[in-house]
């Protein structure tokens, strides 16, 4: 009997591991992330990406590094198990696929521009735009998690929700992009260094 009670208690606490924040807690977090984002000129970080497709036995794991420079330069580079990088610069994507270079101009597609902007802002975590998202705030042991559900139907066709995890300093530690099918891409950051000098050469193509 005691075991059952422990088990029940454990289950209850497991369910409650992620609890909704109060309005005060939510606005404190929002302020913290916003002020952190404002102070951020560069970000350099490693990442591991887990692509989850429901029918697969294991997630597809790829890894690499990220470089960000204010206001909107992003280089996303995979190193394992293949070498591939994409630079978001102005209204272009510059792709280097194992040495094969190509570029995509996004200026003709409003949707791609929007998606592009989302990727850039999700790197900093500053997506608190209530006109664009339905936002809910949760707290876990040492991290906070915010769920951003796009209100724009054109975007929600591709991404049902962004779940962003923040550490105590208000830095992004994990991004999860959930598709309408519930398959998702989870990106976990590590060795995240803020405001280390990054030369423009990093974003050259």
């Amino acid at each position, binding site marked *: 009997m005691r075991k059952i009670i422990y088990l029940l208690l454990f289950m209850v606490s497991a369910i409650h591991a992620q609890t909704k924040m109060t309005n005060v807690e939510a606005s404190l977090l929002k302020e913290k992330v916003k002020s952190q984002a404002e102070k951020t000129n560069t970000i350099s970080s490693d990442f591991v*990406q887990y692509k989850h497709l429901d029918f697969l036995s294991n997630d597809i794991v790829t890894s690499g590094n990220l470089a960000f420079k204010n206001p909107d330069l992003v280089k996303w580079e995979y190193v394992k198990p293949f070498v591939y990088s994409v630079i978001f610069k102005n209204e272009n994507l510059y792709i280097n696929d194992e040495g094969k270079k190509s570029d995509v101009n996004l200026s003709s597609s409003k949707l791609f521009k929007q998606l592009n902007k989302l990727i850039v802002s999700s790197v900093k975590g500053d997506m608190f735009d209530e006109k664009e998202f339905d936002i809910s705030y949760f707290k876990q042991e040492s991290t906070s998690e915010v769920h951003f559900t796009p209100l724009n139907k054109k975007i929600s066709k591709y991404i049902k929700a962004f779940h962003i995890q923040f550490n105590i300093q208000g830095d992004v530690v994990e991004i999860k992009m959930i598709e309408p099918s519930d398959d998702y891409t989870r990106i976990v950051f590590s060795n995240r260094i803020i405001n280390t000098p990054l030369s423009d050469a990093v974003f050259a193509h």
Partner: protein
Amino acid sequence: MRYLLISLLFLLASCASYQQRNNFEVLEISDKVITNPYFSDVAKDYVYKANIVFYDKSFGGLFIVKKIEENHHRVVFTTEMGAKIFDFSFHYNEFKVNYILDEMDKKILLNILEKDFRVLVREKEKTITKSIKNNSELLETKIVSKKYYYLFNKGILNKIARTNNGKEKVVFLFSKISDASAENIKILHNNIKLSINLKSI
């Protein structure tokens, strides 16, 4: 008269079967079953780095195949960053589009992809003819009314060709083969500028 003979000969030569064109000797009709082992393990996730070249455009991404059960496969293509481009199911001869990016939702393109990937993941087929040359075996079959030839060298499947009037229209090339899996796969079209290159990761 001579012209007639020459043109008749020419006509005959141009009607040569795929086996004849490739100097294979056709044997008696075989009841052998053709086996393509490359996507046959339900326990395995088959993940390839893909490069698709369509006319002057080149797309990169991840090409994923999963055998769900006998005669049932999922075939998914995503960008490197994980966004889905298409997601198909093949169940016996049935083809289902679970998802496709609006920009790619074109009937002509879907037909091509359906035909290509059906053959790619198809595991067992009845043989119509069998022909041989040295250490190679060429097995003929029909998949959804199209003629295909499976080329085995020393028992290993290296190539599948879809033919029309004895000529190759689409070829599937398998290389770097070990443990019933092909590290490199190429799907090349002769009548349209489309090639799909897959490299196992």
